[in-house]
Structures are given as C-alpha cells and as structure tokens.
C-alpha cells in the first residue's frame, strides 16, 4: 500500500537485535537442556532454531530493504480482509477455550516454549510491515505488548501448578504448596529476594526510560480534534464497549458494576476449597467466570480498541493503513422498529396530538413493549428460573440475597457479549430506545 523503504531502514536495526535476542534465548535454552542429558533432542531443535534466528537477524541487518524478513504481502492482505470485530472476538474466545480444555498439553514446558517462539517470530515478521509497526511502536502502546507477553507467561506459570495440584488432589494428595510448609527466617530469605527484585525493577525501568522516550505530541488545542480520539490504553476496553452500548451504560453503569462485582466476589464465592494454592478443578465456576471477565471482556477489548480501531473508531486489519476515508455502512435498527414496522408492518405507536402526560407515557411503554418484555424476562424471570435448574445447588448454599446478587451481576456482565452477538447477527442497535428520557439500551 505504501512504499516502506525509509521505514524499513529505521526498523531493520531493531529487528536485527530482536532476532539476535530470540537466538540467544534459544541458545541458552538449548545449552540448559543439553546439560540435562535426557532432553538432547529438544536441545538440538532449539540450537537449530537459534541458528535460523541468526540468519533472520543477519538478513534484517543486511542493509537491503528487500532482504528484511516479512510476512508475504498476500498473507497480510488476506489477514486484513478476514479480520473484523466478529472474527476477532469469536476467534480469541475459541483460542481461550482451546487453551483451557487442552491445558494439560499446553502447560508442558516445550509446548509453551514453542508457542512463545512462534509468537515472537510472528511479531518480528509483522513489525516489518509499516502499518503494523506504526501502531505497535507508538510509545504508549508498548506497555500493552509487554502486558500480553506477561499475562501469557504468568497464566502459564499458574496453570502449570494448577494442573499438577489438580492431579494430586485427584489422587488424594495435598497440593504442592503444602509440601514446603517448613518455616524459614524472613531475614535473609525474603528480604534478599525483595532487594534483588527492587534492583531488577529499577534496572528494567532505567533501561526502558533510556531507550524509549515518553510521548509528547503537539501542544494541546481544543479545536483540533485528533481522529481517532482515544482514552488512555487501560480504558480502551470501555471505549470499545461504546460500539455496542450508550455511554451511560458502557461508560458509567458497567464500570461501576465491574468494581462492585469485584468487591462482592469474596462474599459470593462460598466455595471453601482452593484457598491458598493454585487449582482449577476445585473451583471451575469462579475460575471460568473470572477468566471470561478478565481476558475476553477486558484484555482482548483493550487490544482491539488500541491496535485495531482507527479513525472514526472503524475496524482496521493489523496490516491495514489507517485511512480516515474508510466508510462503514451503518444499517443498525432498533428493536421497536423491527417489531412494529418490519414484523407487524405497522407504524410505530405514536400518541395523538395534544395527549396528556399519562397517555404519552402509555404510548412510550407500548412502543417499547417488546424490549421491556425481553429485558424484564431476562432480569426478573431468568434468575428464579436458573435457581431451580442450572444453579439449584448454588441457590441452596447461597441463600436468596446472595444468590440474587450473583445471578444479576452475572446476567448484567453477559449483556455485553449478548449485545455483540445481536449486533453481528441482526444489526440490532437498541433493545429499548426512549429518546424522551435519553434512555437507550
């Protein structure tokens, strides 16, 4: 799309160092595995891989732009064409499901190491694309890249221990954490760890500060609105929700519910197991709920909002140029419109001229009846219905109030994915739309 000669010269040096780093990482891994004797096969694999990375590094540093390793442009075009909010969300959801279901396979160190390598090489190959690099290398976006790798790493660390513990508990053994319950003195065992941590964090922060200048754009101007205008990165998940909901719900009510729900969590989770050690099997419901909220509804939305939403908050593929002239057809329809006009082929109920306030309210209620009935059923009928079916055990143990709070928080959290699906499948804009009260849902 754009000639990237000048750009590649800038990024080639970085990529050279980047591939050398991967080579070094794998070289060390190979050495460690070789010393263990029983893993010589893997040691050879990573040694060869390290060699391949050195080849990529030297290609990147060759000084010729055509030699810098990059994804074939056909692949990039295909990815751009295929990607969209629906595929992204459904795809990440499927990925998380696969990671969860086959967690015993994925936590094996060699599998995890392979995935890390694949992710890093894909990242490097993508960085050679001008449009991709322009967004990822924005100084304030760099932390998100770090966050993704850190989350992947720590999720691996936790899941690995949970898998071991779950296996032990099945055999009637205590969790691994129980084995080391002899006491040690805080000085030196903990104090020195803390000291080393402080030195490491300081060194890391200094390194980061020296090599990446903090962003400073043009002086503030209240008349020059940038396109896209984005909130700080940690709020971009909330900004992404604005696609599906009005600000009063996406920006005020839902975030408040997130905070309230997090605070309520310890009082709603009556399961006494899994306290003080990593475990999944013993607390599947709370585990899956938290992971769904954290990864699907928070982290992936932040990534979507940061890297894939461009001018006018339109969706752009990862290798797509952020042209402000991209036009997206908006043909979303409200539910009353769908019900009265499209289904019953009648005009929307409208109060007669000069009607009193009560009549007007009556007509609004009639107009919004389909949405109000649906929402009422969802929030009022579903909790008791669940209490006697799926959540029968929960209801018995939690009691009425705790159960109702849990069920309602759960249902309100699920309004987001439900609205997403309704938007993608039926182009539904609002379920309830009362402009008279600025109330759209």
């Amino acid at each position, binding site marked *: 799309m754009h000639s990237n000669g000048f750009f590649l010269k800038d990024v080639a040096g970085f990529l050279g160092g980047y591939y050398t780093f991967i080579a070094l990482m794998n070289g060390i891994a190979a050495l460690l595995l070789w010393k263990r004797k029983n893993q010589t096969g893997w040691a050879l694999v990573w040694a060869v891989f390290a060699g391949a990375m050195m080849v990529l590094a030297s290609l990147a540093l060759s000084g010729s732009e055509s030699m810098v390793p990059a994804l074939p442009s056909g692949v990039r075009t295909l990815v751009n064409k295929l990607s969209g909010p629906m595929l992204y969300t459904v795809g990440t959801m499927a990925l998380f499901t696969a990671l969860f279901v086959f967690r015993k396979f994925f936590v094996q160190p060699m599998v995890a190491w392979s995935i890390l390598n694949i992710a890093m090489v894909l990242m490097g190959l993508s960085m050679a694309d001008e449009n991709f690099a322009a967004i990822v290398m924005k100084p304030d976006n760099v*932390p998100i890249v770090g*966050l993704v790798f850190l*989350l992947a790493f*720590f999720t691996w*660390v*936790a899941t690995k*221990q*949970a898998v071991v513990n779950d296996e032990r508990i099945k055999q009637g053994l*205590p969790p*691994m*954490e*129980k084995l*080391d*319950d*002899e*006491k*040690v*003195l*805080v*000085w*030196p*065992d*903990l*104090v020195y760890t*803390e000291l080393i*941590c402080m030195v490491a*964090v300081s060194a890391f*922060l*200094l390194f980061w*500060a020296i090599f990446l*200048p*903090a962003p*400073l*754009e*043009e*002086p*503030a101007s*209240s008349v020059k609105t940038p396109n896209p*205008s984005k909130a*700080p990165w*940690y709020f971009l998940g*909330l*900004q992404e929700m604005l696609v599906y909901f*009005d*600000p*009063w719900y996406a*920006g*005020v009510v839902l975030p408040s519910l997130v905070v309230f729900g*997090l*605070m309520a*969590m*310890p009082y709603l*989770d009556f399961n*006494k197991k*899994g306290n*003080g*050690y*990593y475990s999944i099997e013993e607390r599947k419901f709370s585990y899956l709920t938290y992971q769904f909220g954290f990864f699907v509804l928070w982290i992936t939305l932040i990534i979507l909002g940061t890297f894939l939403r461009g001018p006018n908050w339109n969706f752009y593929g990862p290798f797509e140029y952020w042209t402000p002239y991209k036009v997206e057809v908006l043909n979303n329809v409200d539910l009353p419109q769908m019900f009265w006009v499209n289904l019953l082929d009648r005009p929307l109920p409208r109060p007669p001229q000069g009607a009193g306030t009560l009549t007007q309210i009556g007509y609004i209620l009639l107009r919004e009846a389909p949405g109000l009935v649906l929402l009422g059923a969802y929030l009022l009928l579903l909790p008791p219905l669940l209490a006697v079916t799926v959540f029968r055990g929960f209801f018995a143990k939690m009691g009425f109030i705790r159960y109702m709070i849990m069920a309602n928080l759960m249902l309100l959290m699920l309004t987001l994915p439900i609205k997403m699906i309704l938007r993608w499948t039926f182009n539904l804009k609002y379920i309830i739309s009362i402009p008279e*009260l*600025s109330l759209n849902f």
Partner: protein
Amino acid sequence: MAIGETIRNSQIWKSIFRHPMPLDRRNRIVVMLTNFFLHLHPVSIKKQGIALSFTWCMGGVTFFLFLVETVTGVLLMFYYRPTLEWAYNDILALRDVTSLGILRELHRWGAHAMVITTWLHMYRVFLTGSYKPPREFNWVIGVILLLLTLLLSFTGYLLPWDQLAIWAITVGSNMARATPFLGYEGPGQQLLTIGGIDMITDGSDARFGLLGARFVGEETLNRFYVLHCIAIPLAVALLLAIHFWRVRKDGGISGPL
C-alpha cells in the same frame, strides 16, 4: 576491616541499630522486630509463601513502583508548573534541555508498569483463591487501590498538556456526561427539575464536577494536578498501610490450610 569495626562499635551506629549485624539466628530475628522498615514483615514465614512461582512478587513490585512514582513525582514537581502558559513548555524542556529529564520517562513508564503489575497481583491473588476468608476485606481494599491506581494514572495523563493528553481526558471524561440522572446527557436527567428549571445542565453535572469546567481547560489542569499529586496519593498511602497491616492480621501470605 578495622574501620568497619570502629564504625559498628561507635555510639552513633549503635544508637541507630540496637543490635549486632544479622548474622546469627538470634539477631536475624531481632532485626525484624526492631527495624522500622522491616517490622512490616513477620519474623519467619512458610517456605512456599515466598516461592516466586507462587507469589510472582507482583504486590511488592507494585508497592516499589509506587515509591518510584512518589520520588520521581516529587522531583518533577520542582520543575513543572500546572498552568496553560507553562505546562507544555516545561515538559518540552524536560525532554530537550533539562538535565535528568529522564525523570519524566521513569515516571511515565513506571506508571504504566504499575497499572500492569496491579492487574497481575490481583490475578495471582484470584488464582490462588487468596481472597477467600479470612481475607475478604483485604481484597475489597485491594479493589479500591486498583481503582485509585487507574485514577492516578488517568489524572497524570493530562499534565503534559499536549494533544495526546487533553483528548484522552476529553474522551475519558465525556462518559460522565452520560451518568444516569447526574449527567446532562444521561438518562433521567430530565426528571430533575424544580419549577420547570433544569437542575442538571452542562454547568452543574457530573462531568462539570470532574473537570471544573464545561471542557478540558485550565481549571481541569489545576484540578487534576491537585488530585494527582496530593489527594489520590494520600488516599493510596492510607489504604496501602491498611492493606499491608491486614495481610499480617489476616494470617500472613496465603497458603493451603
């Protein structure tokens, strides 16, 4: 060695450290009890409780980053003036001409890192089920601290007074305009009228309270500066103290019962 010995035997040294070097078991216990900075810790701890694979050290790193932010922040306050006339120029000078302008980089990247480590700390506490009784209330304090961390970062985002800053804050604070009943574009605000006069206007709603004005301007800069440098850090410091105290009182670092 002799000099070291002399110093350690001097009256000044002994008045500061009331016991010999923590080289034997007895003094390693005494140092934890008598040193102000160490007394937050217990004397001894379960071995699994300090395993890095268990704790990830993220709570500690978050606290350390808070200290880094405090120190770099105070130093930056000597230089930066939160007015429309000077804010941007001071940051520009920090980048281009001031010695130790790197303090701004440390402060900004430390802030981003702190948001991330807070999330990771919370993630670990969840995954180990450490919010369960008796630690429920400490989790609640943690959630408030998470909120305050995000607000600290958000208020600081405005201070450089560049395009990135004011538009991020504009977008972020526009949400408050839609607060139910209390925002002038929010649902239900039409109902709050007295004698036909709207109580909720763009000059009296939740967003106005946040910004101190109808749009992000000098009043907002001042308001966010005070929140960022004084109000929120004080709240965080108090809650941190309670958070740490409760860790000890609720039975120390969690572990299988």
